[in-house]
């Protein structure tokens, strides 16, 4: 019964490594980690080495005493608590909103947010340890969380969520001193590892929920120029932190054009890496006219 057969689960992406080589099969992952660590280092260069390129943290930063960048989500909470920030913070928030309107809101999650490093590590470990099973919380819970943070801001008249927010706690902690914030971060890590697959970033985080709303109209999107070449290896689903976003575009559900339009796609590009058939590529949504897909019936025009 327990004859050892060569059926050890092939890690997702193995096929792509074989087809394209290791570097090409990790291109976007490497770029993304460089972006995450690079941004963190820009913030840390000041306090650690006295090189003040960027001052502040992700809530508000000032680059070279010229470029203000503010987290529009924290500004929104401030507004909900009935405080109108001054022009500099509003300008910073406007720049950030415009940027993510272009590159996709949840790009923040995969290319900037420090907690992503933590939860990606938790997921990697979860797979490595073969931990099965996951609590069920529906993905839209994050929008309830988003609503909750705005309601608590309005009711308490303070930016209440900032007292717990693991995202700003981690970033601020690394730059200004962690204190007991490590306990909150450990809780997020353990939750993702033992309780729920992609638990925090994929289901609960209100920051991601907020940025997904900005991303509804994002220009930069993952396209599927070669979706006909898909061999159903499922590697993209295995690595995607939001796998529900792939299916409509990949399988042309109800005539979906070959571009991932779902706002919760984090533009991490890992699907591009692991696809041995090069189904995916970054592109813009400008040309989203439905290309006729062979074998899949088109949705009837309404």
């Amino acid at each position, binding site marked *: 019964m327990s004859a050892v057969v060569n059926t050890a689960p092939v890690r997702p992406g193995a096929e792509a490594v074989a087809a394209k080589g290791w570097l090409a099969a990790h291109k976007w992952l490497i770029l993304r980690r460089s972006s995450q660590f690079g941004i963190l280092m820009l913030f840390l260069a000041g306090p650690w080495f006295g090189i003040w390129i960027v001052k502040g*943290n992700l809530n*508000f930063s000032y680059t070279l005493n010229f470029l203000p960048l503010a987290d529009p989500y924290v500004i929104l909470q401030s507004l909900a608590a009935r*405080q109108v920030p*001054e022009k500099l913070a509003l300008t910073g928030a406007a720049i950030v909103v415009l940027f993510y309107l272009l590159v996709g809101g949840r790009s923040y999650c995969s290319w900037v947010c420090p907690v992503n490093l933590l939860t990606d590590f938790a997921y990697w470990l979860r797979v490595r340890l073969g931990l099965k099973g996951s609590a069920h919380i529906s993905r839209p819970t994050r929008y309830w969380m988003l609503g*909750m943070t705005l309601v608590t801001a309005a009711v308490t008249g303070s930016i209440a969520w900032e*007292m717990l927010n693991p995202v700003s706690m981690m970033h*601020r902690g690394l730059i200004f*001193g962690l204190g007991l*914030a490590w306990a909150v971060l450990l809780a997020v890590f353990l939750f993702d590892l033992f309780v729920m697959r992609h638990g925090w970033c994929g289901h609960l985080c209100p920051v991601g929920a907020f940025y997904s709303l900005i991303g509804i109209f994002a220009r930069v999107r993952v396209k599927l120029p070669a979706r006909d070449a898909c061999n159903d290896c499922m590697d993209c689903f295995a690595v995607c932190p939001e796998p529900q976003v792939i299916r409509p575009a990949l399988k042309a559900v109800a005539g979906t054009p070959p571009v991932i339009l779902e706002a919760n796609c984090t533009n991490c590009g890992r699907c591009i890496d692991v696809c041995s058939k090069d189904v995916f590529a970054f592109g813009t949504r400008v040309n989203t006219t439905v290309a006729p897909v062979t074998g899949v019936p088109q949705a009837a025009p309404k």
Partner: protein
Amino acid sequence: MDNENKPSAAARRQFLADTARMACGVGLLGLGVGLYARHARALPPAAIRPPGALPETEFSAACIRCGLCVRDCPFDILHLAKPEEPLSTGTPYFVARQFPCEMCEDLPCVKACPTGALDHSLKDINKSKMGLAVLVDHETCLNFLGLRCDICYRVCPVIDKAITLDRQINVRTGRHTQFIPVVHSDHCTGCGKCEKACPTEVASIKVFPLYMAKGQLSSHYRLGWVEKEKAGGSLVAPDVEHRYNMPEGMKYESGKGLSGNPGAVPPAPTPPAPVALPKAFQGNKL
């Protein structure tokens, strides 16, 4: 018809149950966050906000916890609150006994604030109200003990306005003066230099957030002498001129005290004989 309805009814039930579960869970978390935020509303007594900080309730809504004030403070006195500290996580404060505000004239921390949580209309550091110094312990203040410590008065950046020395008679010695440090709230900026410099083991003068340090008279109170000055005379019956009955050669002037040379020192009064208790109160009987 039934075949179509049954699964959709089940799905609807599932959807409603899921939604209710989600709403309850998130609602509970929200309640926790809200209560937690409420608790952090009252600033702990040792934490002083940077100059120009809005009143605490508005500050916790306007401050976005970016730390730019911390970065631009040239003396590095400001910290961002850590989660375990009893004020809103990530908000800036300083502890006067560690490092008081150096009161930079160009207000770099206020200028750095991107939201106006540190009020940009504050242009003069001497007008700031970070807190208020209070001489909390009359038992340990060296000046109260009759010494000429005066350190809090000397280090005060608003010397002779925020802290003055009020001369009083030292009743213990009967012949010395106590120089009592008195803080005047209309000039004290709450920088905390007095608290930092106080030489007693635990500071005898401390800076507290304004809400803790400042009293307020009831709105119907009128100060008789102020009203009298305003009216140009007594509002009630005219004051009877006070007459002092002084020993020969002595003079008393209001505000100046006694002067002159007493003729002879009166003999010390003999201590009064102990008064016997009435019978009724002796023993344990009435």
